[in-house]
């Protein structure tokens, strides 16, 4: 049993941590927050030069040809640093979409430019408040032209390539759009986390090409979101860890009533609750990373677990950080709100927690053989030998048939 990262992966993690510590300290984040600009082009180019944008991209497209475990440790460090980069949008979403759903020609045209950092890609999904559903997509693709509106596109102000969900001839389709091209009107929108820009787009007969390797648009999109959810969850765990560390540091040095406030049990126990939430999330993230790396069918439920637990842990860590800093945590000048904003942003960008919880239950029901993975057993061999739950499963399937959506 080796449920963890290899020494090589940990070394990579350390390298990324040191780079971001020098190149993207929290002051860098704050500068962007105050300037209202969503990214640091210099940081982006240096990151690209280190090869990290193409971590899982095959070498023939200029990538590093590594795996998802490597990408996961990079993600955790980006999260820990609150690095102001469109990394998730361009790497976990746009690059993955083309890598997995593009034709060979599309891969050749776009992957090298994404990997080199020349262009930034992003996903445009939401059209209104609430959770996107295939049945209410208003944006349409007709004869190679896109018409419709997308809002709250993450990193939308800096992205050149849009992966846009639209209604096509055969249902949901994902299309590639040049966001600087004709028929596209971009409007910057103020985000709760200004370290990622946000923009709305109005498409009027904008030239668009469907991702040619995709058969069923909505299920491809769900798969793309699952994989991105695991990677973003590592960012969230990184951010939550840093928030807890800073909270610990502060409460150890801040004295009240003659002793460090960290010595008061109420705060000790609440920091433990953050730590526990964080460690459970980390464990779920490792499960997700394993599922990504091994390409197992468990990715659908592992992704939900990783995302839900990481979103909750980061939200909790950030809120508790502010609370335990007392009044100073509420000031603009203090770094607490950088975490508070980022946590909320990350909890929303791929869909809110309640939507993922609903998705999880639907998937559990659909699987019918609802088995908690592992259940404490050491190895996959163990799992397959478990006593059958056939009577329980039969009851479950029968009882839930009417409720399955």
């Amino acid at each position, binding site marked *: 049993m080796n449920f963890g990262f290899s020494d090589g992966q940990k070394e990579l993690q350390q390298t990324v941590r040191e780079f971001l510590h020098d190149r993207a300290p929290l002051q860098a984040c704050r500068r962007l927050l105050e300037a209202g600009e969503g990214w640091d082009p210099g940081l982006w180019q240096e990151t690209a030069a280190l090869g990290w944008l193409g971590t899982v991209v095959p070498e023939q497209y200029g990538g590093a040809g590594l795996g998802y475990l490597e990408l996961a440790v990079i993600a955790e460090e980006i999260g820990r640093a609150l690095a102001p980069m469109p990394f998730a949008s361009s790497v976990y979403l746009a690059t993955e979409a083309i890598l997995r759903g593009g034709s060979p020609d599309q891969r050749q045209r776009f992957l090298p430019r994404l990997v080199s950092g020349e262009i930034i890609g992003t996903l445009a999904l939401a059209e209104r408040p609430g959770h996107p559903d295939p049945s209410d997509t208003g944006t349409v693709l007709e004869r190679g032209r896109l018409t419709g509106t997308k809002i709250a596109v993450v990193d939308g102000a800096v992205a050149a390539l849009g992966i846009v969900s639209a209604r096509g001839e055969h249902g949901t389709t994902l299309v590639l759009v040049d966001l600087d091209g004709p028929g596209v009107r971009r409007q910057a929108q103020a985000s709760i986390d200004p370290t990622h820009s946000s923009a709305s787009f109005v498409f009027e007969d904008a030239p668009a090409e469907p991702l040619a390797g995709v058969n069923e648009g909505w299920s491809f999109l769900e798969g793309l979101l699952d994989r991105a959810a695991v990677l973003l969850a590592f960012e969230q765990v990184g951010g939550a860890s840093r928030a807890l560390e800073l909270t610990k540091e502060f409460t150890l040095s801040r004295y009240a009533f003659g002793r460090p406030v960290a010595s008061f049990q109420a705060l*000790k126990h609440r920091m433990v609750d953050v730590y526990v939430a964080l460690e459970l999330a980390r464990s779920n993230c490792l499960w997700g990373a394993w599922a990504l790396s091994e390409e197992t069918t468990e990715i659908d439920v592992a992704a939900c677990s990783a995302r839900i637990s990481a979103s909750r842990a980061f939200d909790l860590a950030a809120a508790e950080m502010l609370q335990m800093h007392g009044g100073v945590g509420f000031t603009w000048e203090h770094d607490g709100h950088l975490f508070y904003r980022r946590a909320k942003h990350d909890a929303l960008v791929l869909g809110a927690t309640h939507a993922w919880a609903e998705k999880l239950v639907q998937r559990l*029901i659909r699987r019918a053989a609802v088995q908690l993975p592992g259940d404490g057993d050491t190895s996959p061999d163990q799992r397959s030998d478990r006593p059958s739950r056939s009577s329980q499963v039969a*009851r479950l399937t029968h009882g839930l048939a009417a409720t399955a959506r």
Partner: protein
Amino acid sequence: MDLNDTAEEKAFRASARAFLEAHAPAFGTRPVALDDPEMVRQAQNWQARKKDNGWACLTWPAEYGGRGLGPIEDVIWSQEEARWDTPPNLFIVGIGMLGPAIMAHGTLEQKARYLPRIARGDEIWCQLFSEPAAGSDLAGLRTTAVRDGDDWVLNGQKMWTTFARLSAWGVIVARTDRTVPKHAGLTCFIVNMRSPGIEVRPIRQIDGRSDFNEVFFTDCRVSESHRLGDVGNGWAVARTILMHERAAIGSVGARLDVPALLAVAAACGVADEGEVRQRIADFYVRASGLTYTNYRTLTALSRGEMPGPEASIGKLVGASLVQEMSAFGIDLQGLAGTLMSGLHECQATYLGAPGGRIAGGTDEILRNILAERVLGLPAEPRLDKNVPFHDVPTGPRTRQ
């Protein structure tokens, strides 16, 4: 990242399986009460069979009859044995906790006399630690041992003692000096549970079961040759025992799990309600978090490391999860949830659940441990730390 056994672990698991396949079927159990003499005999026979074939005391040093294996082999063995219907392990206290204490602190005679019999299951042993007034603050215990000639005389009361009714022997920690601070005045003894002056009474729990006992000591004489470790060194001996208790990686998986809750929800016609589904998702995510945290602990064991205090996460989260899930399972059933015959034994689980959050380290103590030993936060102020025991307040003062 590899979730499979290493080659060595795989081979070990295969050999465990081979033994169990050959021997376990003969020991399948009918449900009987824990202290039914027939059950005890079966348990002893199974333990002897394991011992005779090299499957008892895996982690004991070879010189004491063990195989000197590590914690991961212990876990693998437990997983394999759990797949079979075998008699309950009445020897876990003796083998898992008290035997190692005798190895660490006992005399040569004590080791020769007791260890082989513990290993073979000839005797059931119990741990006489907690008292009515000393659970979380174990070092504040009040049972006394007073020297009288070649003996020590025990007076006091122990509580929450598992297996006391069945045990031939026990290890007790008692106060031998009230004039020094609490940790310094303790001594451990090996106690013959059939001695005069010992009375065992079962404790009735809120769920109607009696898994634990009170043990009353009234002028019970213990020979000086049964003292375990030096006079005044009882706390060190107790810590050895407690450390091994913590090392036991128990599965905190609920009897009631997410598939069962979904089935209950379906049976109650509420499986399509958003609020119900949100809670079920939350339970699933916490349970999977626990499962994979356990995998991380197994990874450390596989590397030969002992689990650190972060292993407390499993108990802290798991015990509350059992309580919340069983409460939810009951609530789903509406008025029918009041029936003890309700779906999936939610009611029995719910009544047993509070014990899990208290026994073996309360939620609050576990949070202190995680705060202090993992997060490195300051220790709790301890007003009694350097105070002679007889000066330590033990209740509201009725007079000055």
